[in-house]
């Protein structure tokens, strides 16, 4: 999320005009926001393209046809969950377990949705319905940072920024998948493509492991997943995730209590 290009709208600090206007009229505010958002989103194409490519290759190797892959990738637009679905189904897990595990991976999107919602109050329901489709990691990260940095921006411009940042990112994912799916059949069977999904899952999760509670949550989840791997219907996965989440929350609470107790003790000593 660092090293974003300089924002051209920053130099010209325009007054906020008519903030209650429709996001698509607001006298050019929407388009100005859209342009800033698109500029901020462009660097993420570098990450999203190869990831989409990888998904296309893996899905093809798992035996999906091009139509299925393209419908899945453009309907779901959530890479990790798509890998989870393909991987568990190829692994012989019941389809319902594969779907539940994929949805579990996407639960974080509900948190994104909750934290974006206040910035969309008052917009028409179809704007919010389309915005729902754009809730992906990168768009959420860019938009939230912008809204916190520039609380003075008009709603039209904020919404323009939101859709603008998705404009280079979402098509990159879909196009990357298409290229991967088309090239996938050309990849020799001797290549160890089976290692791509676990590698990708670790790479997606690791940057989010910050601080002691996260570290404990991940360590417990991995240990439990290895110990419970023999359980049927991927129950080991669900149990391990639950244990990890509980551990993270418990460590977080314990650390907060200890910090509070220390602060109290410090206050009493003075």
């Amino acid at each position: 999320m660092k090293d974003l290009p300089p924002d051209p709208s920053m130099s010209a600090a325009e007054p906020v005009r008519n903030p209650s206007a429709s996001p698509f009229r607001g006298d050019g505010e929407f388009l100005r926001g859209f342009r800033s958002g698109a500029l901020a989103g462009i660097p993420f194409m570098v990450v999203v393209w190869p990831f989409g490519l990888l998904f296309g290759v893996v899905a093809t190797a798992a035996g999906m046809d091009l139509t299925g892959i393209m419908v899945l990738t453009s309907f779901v637009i959530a890479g990790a969950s798509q890998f989870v679905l393909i991987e568990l189904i190829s692994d012989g897990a019941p389809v319902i377990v594969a779907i539940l595990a994929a949805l579990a991976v996407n639960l974080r999107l509900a948190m994104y949705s909750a934290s974006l919602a206040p910035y969309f109050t008052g917009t028409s329901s179809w704007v919010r319905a389309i915005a729902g489709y754009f809730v992906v990691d990168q768009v959420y990260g860019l938009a939230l940072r912008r809204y916190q940095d520039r609380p003075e921006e008009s709603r039209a411009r904020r919404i323009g920024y939101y859709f603008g940042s998705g404009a280079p990112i979402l098509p990159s994912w879909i196009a990357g998948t298409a290229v991967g799916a088309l090239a996938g059949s050309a990849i020799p069977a001797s290549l160890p493509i089976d290692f791509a999904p676990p590698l990708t899952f670790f790479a997606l999760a690791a940057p989010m492991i910050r601080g002691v509670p996260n570290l404990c949550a991940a360590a417990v989840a991995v240990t439990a997943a290895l110990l419970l791997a023999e359980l049927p219907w991927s129950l080991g996965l669900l149990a391990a995730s639950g244990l990890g989440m509980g551990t993270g929350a418990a460590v977080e609470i314990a650390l907060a209590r200890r910090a509070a107790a220390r602060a109290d003790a410090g206050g009493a000593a003075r």
Partner: protein
Amino acid sequence: MTGISDVTAWAAIITLGFGTYFVRASFLLLAGGREFPTWAMRLLRYVPVTVLPALAAPMAMWPRALEGETDPARIAGAAVTIAVGILTRSLLGAIVAGLATFLALGALF
């Protein structure tokens, strides 16, 4: 998809598609910007760091392609991916480092 019928595969795609859309659009579509209770937010915060590694660990430890035989190159690749990901916070950097480790060790042994 291999192992399941076309109808099942399409049902899975459509279900995941609608399910994911409702998860993402949920709070945007609710009026008033309601929020999760604190305990739910606290648990949900740990979803990505638990579900993804829990899924990946058995796959890296007992690869299906090798009929479940543990492969040092895959374990080293996974360890490097995790370490680089935690230290650099870069998704692509972690993938490249882990893949390079895996391929280099795979070529050696």
